[in-house]
């Protein structure tokens, strides 16, 4: 009795969508300015802080917030929890949008953007020591896999145009269906690879990365926290969709999803503290300087949702679930932001704070993502129809 996904319909031009278009337009103008005038004229990036807001947030955090498809994919396909199937399509959609925008973020950030095509094509120059190369190639392939997974849904309305188109789309969908196992497995593999390598990447900063973040298990920590973030995003997005689009929330399903995140968050904190203790750096957490306070704050943020979700009553309360999910997303985002920016210390005479154009672009890209999500769920079969019968889960 899987609920069938339907377009939820409704007007596309609303106050919210107009505001989002406005934010994105500002960003679009800024993007053109950045491409024409260069990085120095538009960003606060410098030789001490070569990575800034666009890498730390748009790319690294954005990709981690787009792991909903990965997390639910593991649940549905690998652990065979079919009842979460209705959550998969919206999760894959947010993933596809999130990763696409992460790709846009990279393209804007690299100084020689016109040469970016060389990365996938100059294969005889590939340097396999470079974690960044692996991340770049995996993300490119992953974006393709995600849109391929969504293609049947997005092509669906075209099928009504005429008979020939309908048959062509039907054949494509059938072929894709036959190949679904290798394609889905590839998607899961690519996500595992690049999400962990995003952790490996900062290991190369060596002693310039603060000891509270610098650990050989950085890739493992990035992987665990991205899965937790993926589930949190799904809970967040489902809760938000149910309110925004006045649909019945899948409380039971969301509650059990939230319950999965608790052990992941606890595992993350335990591994991180255990590693600090093992390396003898635990005392640094109490050093009292700026970075140690930030690190301590991270632990608090990671554990707050765990505390919220300990109570069974909270787990069945949409508001509490929503708050816990937001807390988890914030925790994972903060951890990434800190690892890439706050924990990185190139020397006392360097400083960085994102410029107005940098912030404008980041805000505008997020606005675009939200807008695209709203438009697509209103016009395509993404969200499962509201259940009429009682809670199954």
């Amino acid at each position, binding site marked *: 009795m899987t*609920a069938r*996904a339907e377009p939820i319909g409704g007007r596309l031009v609303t106050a919210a969508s107009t505001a989002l278009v406005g934010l994105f337009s500002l960003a679009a103008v800024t993007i053109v300015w950045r491409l*024409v*005038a*260069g*990085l*120095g004229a538009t*960003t606060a990036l410098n*030789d*001490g802080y*070569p990575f800034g807001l666009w890498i730390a947030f748009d790319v690294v955090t954005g990709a981690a917030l787009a792991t909903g498809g990965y997390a639910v994919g593991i649940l549905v*396909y*690998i652990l*065979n929890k079919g009842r979460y*199937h209705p959550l*998969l*399509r919206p999760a*894959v959609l947010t993933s596809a949008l999130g990763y696409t925008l992460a790709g846009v973020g990279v393209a804007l950030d*690299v*100084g*020689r*953007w016109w*040469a*970016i095509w*060389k*990365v996938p094509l*100059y294969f005889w*120059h*590939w*340097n*396999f*020591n*470079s*974690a*960044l*190369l*692996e991340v*770049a190639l995996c993300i490119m392939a992953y974006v393709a896999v995600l849109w391929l*997974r969504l293609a*049947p*849904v997005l092509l669906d309305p075209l099928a009504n145009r005429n008979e020939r188109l309908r048959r062509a789309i039907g054949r494509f969908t059938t072929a894709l269906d036959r190949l679904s*196992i*290798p394609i889905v*497995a*590839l998607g*899961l*593999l690519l996500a595992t690879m690049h999400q*962990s*390598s995003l952790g*490996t*990447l900062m*290991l*190369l*900063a*060596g*002693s310039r990365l603060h000891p509270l973040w610098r650990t*050989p298990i950085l890739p493992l920590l990035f992987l665990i926290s991205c899965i937790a973030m993926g589930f949190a995003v799904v809970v967040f997005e489902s809760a938000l969709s149910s309110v925004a689009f006045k649909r019945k929330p899948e409380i039971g399903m969301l509650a059990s999803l939230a319950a999965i995140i608790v052990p992941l968050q606890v595992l993350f904190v335990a591994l991180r503290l255990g590693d600090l203790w093992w390396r003898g750096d635990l005392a640094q957490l109490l050093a009292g300087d700026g970075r140690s306070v930030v690190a301590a704050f991270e632990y608090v943020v990671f554990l707050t949702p765990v505390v919220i979700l300990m109570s069974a009553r909270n787990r069945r309360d949409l508001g509490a679930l929503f708050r816990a999910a937001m807390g988890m997303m914030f925790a994972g985002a903060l951890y990434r932001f800190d690892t890439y920016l706050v924990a*990185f210390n190139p020397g006392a*005479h360097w400083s960085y704070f994102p410029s107005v154009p940098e912030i404008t672009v980041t805000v505008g890209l997020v606005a675009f993502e939200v807008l695209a999500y709203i438009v697509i769920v209103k016009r395509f*079969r993404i969200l499962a129809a509201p259940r009429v019968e009682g809670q199954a889960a």
Partner: protein
Amino acid sequence: MGLTRRAALQAMLTAGAAAAGVRPATAGDRPPADAAGLLYDATLCIGCKTCMVACREANGLAPDTTASPHGLYQAPLDLSVRAKTVIKLYRDGPVQSFVKAQCNHCIDPACASACMLGALDKREFGIVTYDPDLCIGCRYCEVACPFNVPKFEFASRTPKIVKCELCKERLARGQEPACTDVCPRKAVVFGRRTELLKEAKRRIAENPGRYVPRVYGETEAGGTQVLYLSHVPFEKLGLPALGDEPAPQLARTIQHGVYRDLIAPMALYATAVMAMVRNRRSENRGREETHDDGAR
């Protein structure tokens, strides 16, 4: 004996010609056989900055006047896109020392390990050189370098990475690097790394008490092709206390450990496929009707 520079250069260039062509990226802990470098002796440097001027001219760099009042003097404060080498001064009471900064040409460079397409790579004479054709401007090299050396032309619309390449064009013409060529005190000399290291150790042995009894760059971060002698602790001169492990070693060990022979990724892929095949079978057994597309 000191180095007869001309002879050393000549010998090196012949050796280099034999080893010409594309060199495979060195990922080891040993310097390439033809490794060339600099030996900087802080006790000899008088801080005249002639090397800075010669470097700027040899590399066609615009003068960096940003730090001087009214932009009147060429006075770079640190390495920048307009200064591939800089003389700095450390002073603490009566103790003072100059120090020359430039790319140290690591034996196992973190920047080259970071670089996606090998735009930065160790090429002839083990010099870490830059090929803008392979660079997309990601600046990961800047994050990776433990010495903060590579600089990026943020102000340019077509930015490149700027760093010392040991005057590779001059070497190709049979000349030595501009900075060593003009140094009036021979505080910085050019040569084969093995010879320079021998010379540095000879100076320490023959002048007890004159130097910190260690050659910076012999083992730091896996060893560098630029070597330093000093009478004040190296950390005071901005030469960080790095371990003997090559800078990119940890990240590389983890990356290659995880992806060794691609076993882990293939195993993960196979596990995922098998789990899904099994799930689909049990699903088909579970319900009799032909499976429709359902919601994906």
